[in-house]
């Protein structure tokens, strides 16, 4: 059966989804046959977008969303490499709004960050973005004003290449992952400031100790407690308030994308969540990763990968059986999951696997070497929280430009390169897991110069006060920008002094992840820095102007983990 679009709409109505239909763009409607030219995506030279308030329902509850063109997620923008994009954005809200084109290389004044690239879009005003499209791949767009992104103001972008696509596929689907709460994001942040563990319902307990379910000894607990650190602090906001959405559908709405057995299906997966890092898998279906952050990589087959906030991955799956497959986007803290289905026909479902056990953080997530810890634990537990090399907040380990104040709870004594390690919670799963060292750029890197200098930036925080920053400072403290000269080649090392993962995003550029593949280092716009770990990237600062640089966990950014990158002097022609 090959349902045409009319059949699909009928099916959608018949399945009782009629009430949802107006709030979802066609590509995101359940039963989508995939992205095809017949579906109403927004493309062409002139695209009109309107930001406004829209009611949103999921799981039988009604809430209030901030949307683009009245849908959550926002319309799919389908552009073509080489065209000029002209996007007029009208603001019908009573507050400022903006759209940032995430991962897109463009002139800085079109990047859409109020206070960095432009003033923002005032209520009842329209701003026209115009820029040449210089790249291809899967990207996305979202508000950079306040916390609107957390309320639904995000959508996918696909840019078709001018050259033949090296990735062959018969059908494609976009899967945009997000986290929805009926609490206003400002209220979520307020509760985190008042009580940092507010949303965590998976902490260690006496019951878990006695039953063994916590998988942690009394002695280990004592050690964590002595440090005032929570080994279950995996994500700040959990399923206790979030419903995880795939294409705007909750798990019970079960978004379904169609395929015909034997087809090569391209899935363009975007993590547009505000605060949720997902572990993504399709039980029974191996995935071949072909693109990361919009840039092609050498195909690599895997069974599961972690997608941090704001990253994108394109994978090819080739289901041959006439059966349904469950798409699982499990929150990294295992408190809940987004669920969708790939099926030959609408209405077919597959088993939904149960949530797996909550991961426990380890000393390695505090930037402390595991081997020597084991020895130390055996000999002298007291040494852990005060004493010598194991001091978890030794200002001597901080670079001279770092402010070691109230906002710095810990400084990783031995932050390691963890790019070859499996991400949090996937260390011991019984199948293949993608790691960052598996990513190899398909095309050779264009800039082969060695870096002319290095730079270190510490990711710092105090989880007890929910303070976050770079080098110990919140952006609000009037920090110095990070300065580059045009075309400067710099190796930037991010050192994670905290026990949380931070997806760090640089606007207007790709950086090359230094992951052991010189000459073919993968290009990324966002990189997840593992707890207590370090990540280096090589940057060619080839886009003069001012650019936002921040943690893409929205509440971390809002709490101060943000800075501006300036590239000077500006091109004379631009001014």
């Amino acid at each position: 059966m090959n349902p045409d679009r009319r059949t699909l709409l009928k099916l959608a109505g018949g399945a009782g989804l009629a009430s949802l239909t107006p709030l979802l763009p066609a590509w995101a409607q359940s039963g989508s046959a995939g992205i095809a030219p017949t579906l109403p995506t927004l493309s062409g030279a002139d695209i009109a977008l309107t930001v406004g308030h829209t009611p949103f329902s999921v799981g039988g509850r009604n809430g209030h969303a901030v949307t683009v063109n009245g849908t959550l997620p926002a319309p799919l923008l389908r552009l073509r490499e080489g065209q000029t994009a002209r996007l007029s954005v009208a603001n019908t809200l009573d507050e400022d709004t903006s759209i940032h084109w995430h991962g897109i290389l463009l002139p800085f004044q079109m990047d859409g960050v109020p206070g960095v690239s432009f003033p923002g879009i005032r209520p009842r005003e329209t701003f026209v973005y115009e820029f040449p499209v210089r790249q291809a791949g899967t990207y996305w767009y979202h508000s950079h004003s306040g916390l609107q992104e957390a309320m639904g103001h995000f959508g996918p972008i696909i840019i078709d290449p001018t050259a033949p696509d090296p990735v062959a596929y018969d059908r494609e689907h976009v899967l945009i992952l997000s986290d929805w709460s009926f609490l206003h994001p400002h209220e979520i942040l307020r509760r985190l400031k008042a009580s940092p563990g507010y949303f965590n319902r998976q902490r260690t307990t006496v019951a878990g100790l006695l039953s063994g379910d916590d998988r942690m000894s009394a002695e280990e607990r004592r050690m964590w407690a002595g440090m005032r650190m929570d080994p279950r602090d995996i994500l700040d906001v959990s399923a206790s308030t979030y419903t995880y959405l795939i294409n705007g559908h909750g798990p019970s709405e079960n978004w379904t994308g169609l395929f015909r057995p034997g087809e090569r299906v391209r899935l363009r997966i975007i993590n547009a969540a505000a605060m949720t890092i997902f572990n993504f898998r399709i039980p029974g279906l191996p995935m071949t990763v072909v693109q990361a952050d919009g840039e092609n990589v050498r195909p690599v087959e895997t069974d599961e990968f972690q997608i941090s906030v704001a990253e994108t991955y394109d994978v090819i799956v080739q289901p041959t059986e006439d059966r349904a497959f469950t798409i699982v986007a499990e929150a990294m803290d295992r408190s809940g999951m987004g669920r969708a289905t790939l099926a030959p026909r609408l209405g077919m479902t597959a088993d939904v696997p149960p949530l797996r056990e909550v991961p426990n953080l380890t000393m390695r997530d505090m930037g402390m070497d595991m081997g020597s810890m084991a020895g130390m634990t055996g000999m002298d537990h007291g040494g852990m929280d005060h004493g010598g090399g194991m001091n978890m907040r030794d200002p001597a380990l901080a670079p001279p430009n770092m402010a070691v104040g109230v906002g710095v709870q810990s400084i990783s004594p031995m932050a390691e390169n963890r790019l070859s390690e499996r991400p949090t919670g996937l260390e011991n799963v019984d199948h293949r897991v993608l790691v960052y060292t598996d990513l190899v750029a398909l095309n050779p890197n264009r800039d082969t110069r060695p870096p002319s200098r290095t730079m270190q930036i510490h990711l710092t925080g105090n989880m007890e006060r929910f303070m976050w920053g770079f080098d110990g400072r919140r952006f609000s403290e009037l920090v110095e920008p990070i300065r580059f000269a045009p075309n400067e080649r710099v190796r930037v090392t991010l050192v994670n002094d905290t026990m949380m993962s931070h997806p760090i995003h640089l606007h207007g550029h790709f950086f090359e992840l230094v992951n052991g593949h010189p000459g073919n280092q993968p290009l990324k716009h966002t990189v997840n820095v593992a707890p207590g770990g370090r990540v280096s990237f090589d940057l060619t600062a080839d886009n003069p102007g001012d650019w936002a640089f921040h943690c893409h966990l929205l509440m971390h950014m809002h709490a101060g983990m943000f800075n501006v990158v300036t590239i000077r002097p500006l091109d004379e022609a631009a001014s």
Partner: protein
Amino acid sequence: MKVFVTALTPILLTIAPAAAQDHSAHTQTSPTQTTPAEDAVPHAGHDMQMPSESSSPAAAGDGPASAADLYFDPIVMARAREQLRIENGEVITHAVIVDRLEATSSDGVEGYAWDVQAWYGGDINRLWWKSEGEGAFDGDVEHAELQFLYSRAVTPYFNLQGGVRQTSRPAGDRTDLVLGIQGLAPYWFEVDGDVFVSNEGELTARAQAEYDLRLTQRLILQPRGEVSLSAQDIPEFAIGSGVTNVLVGARLRYEITRSFAPYVGVEWSGAVGDTRNFIQSNGDDPNTTRVVLGVRALF
């Protein structure tokens, strides 16, 4: 039991990484040992070819401070930059913490007690308001106090607080200057210690600590202790110099939500030293045991 746990811990800790490496053998995960050294920074001394960590070239400081000023009205941009600054770190917010709001029963006397705090402000500077007190349902408020404090975060876990306290008792009122420390001690103890100087020149102090023992995710046992001290006798309040009062209690709460948790508990309070003598000479019982029933709330 302790011996068993101590023996087990190093084993657990060594098993974990070994298990991770086992798996890496049959997946794409490269073994940790082959971690590329490319990220070596000069002072780590791994990579001789890497240039030094130096500041940006002088040219990088050229041009306008804000590039967008070339395209948009600089006054409008300046406003947007200030908004950006506020939206990325300057979170001004508030919380109301009803730690205890309870009915008490002691030797047939039914009463009530409360301990409420609220704050408003940013990460470092806050206005803090605290109130606690108790009374009998068929009598007067025995003791009620209200504090207005300025609170400043001075370490990652502790706030320094100073301000005034107004205390009402049937025997009279007092106004104190307050200087205190409030925060989170190792092992997750919430502590609060204050020194008070009254308008009569009396010096007193109080320290309290509480701990949340999570039995399950929602059932939480909270032991709580409090010690009061005085530098001098204050006969009108039956307070003697030295340690004046010790209080210990435990409350078992059930968190229906994080914001609302009813509890039951028991609390023992005993007067000490000269205070004890004062109370006994008044013909009162220096020790009290109370059963409490209340609710903890967070707004």
